[in-house]
């Protein structure tokens, strides 16, 4: 244990420890970049398929719901076309039954198609919305990387100050002021001032400012 009254030993401890911390940070940053890059690659592979499924489900629903010529309208069109035939007094009972049976089959088939198509559209829209959220989540890696890079840089700077000029202790106020000039994110300023209790959400206004 280093005694508090032995600054030389404390300097030696910091000089040995800081590069280790720096390397841990560098490795963590590099690995988080690789992880996100791999996940994004996977998403870039499935993204076009999700987009296509979304478009196709829209097309299916459009085709079903179109007023004239749509599949849903097919039942009505068949019923309308066959109504005069069904009312024909000369139509035999077996022909009438056959026509009604065919109409019932068409009605059932269209009903089933609608039951499948509507939830499919909802599902694909939901998946697309979740993919949007994931893309937003991936962007946190960029923020984390920037924050860690800044810490890495400051650790190296402190290490240099300790090793190269052991006699002169850097001025805290100057050091902090210099560090603060390098912040890009609002939460970095809040963390610096100690006014934010470890906010996990990015401090983004989520608005586009048009000039």
């Amino acid at each position: 244990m280093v005694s508090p009254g032995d600054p030389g030993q404390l300097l030696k401890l910091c000089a040995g420890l800081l590069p280790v911390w720096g390397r841990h940070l560098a490795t963590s940053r590099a690995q988080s970049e690789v992880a996100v890059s791999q996940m994004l690659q996977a998403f870039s592979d499935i993204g076009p398929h999700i987009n296509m499924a979304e478009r196709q489900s829209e097309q299916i629903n459009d085709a079903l719901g179109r007023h004239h010529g749509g599949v849903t309208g097919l039942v009505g069109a068949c019923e309308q076309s066959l109504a005069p035939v069904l009312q024909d007094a000369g139509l035999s009972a077996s022909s009438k039954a056959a026509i009604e049976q065919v109409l019932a089959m068409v009605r059932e088939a269209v009903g089933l198609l609608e039951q499948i198509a509507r939830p499919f559209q909802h599902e694909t829209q939901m998946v697309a919305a979740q993919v949007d959220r994931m893309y937003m989540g991936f962007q946190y890696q960029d923020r984390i990387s920037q924050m860690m890079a800044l810490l890495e840089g400051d650790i190296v700077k402190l290490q240099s100050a300790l090793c190269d000029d052991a006699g002169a202790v850097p001025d805290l106020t100057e050091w902090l002021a210099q560090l603060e000039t390098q912040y890009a994110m609002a939460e970095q300023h809040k963390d610096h001032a100690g006014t934010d209790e470890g906010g996990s959400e990015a401090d983004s206004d989520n608005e586009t400012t048009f000039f």
Partner: protein
Amino acid sequence: MAKTILVIDDSDSLRQVFKMALTGAGYNVIEAGDGKAALALLDGRQINMAICDVNMPVMNGIEFVKAAKQLASYKFLPILMLTTESQEEKKEQGKAAGAKAWMVKPFSPTQLVSAVSKLCV
């Protein structure tokens, strides 16, 4: 014909996100990792818009906007600054340099595509 967007960001993963969002919306995307590399791409080719990060090595986003605005062929190129910087002072610098809009990361692809459709000429 699909419009072409120049995306400038030093983060590989962010460029991938841009690319996925924009190609999914029907745009062509060309990429650069910093302002200097982006300027080299302003060689007379047809570019309809640029999306640019602010903090980058070699040449930052504000310097890039200023330099691009000096080029006759790209003087009117709309540039969207897309950055983690949310400070008003930086926004003002972007506006003064000639940027058309400012968006703070993380962005949703829908928000990005909406802004691009407004700005892209």
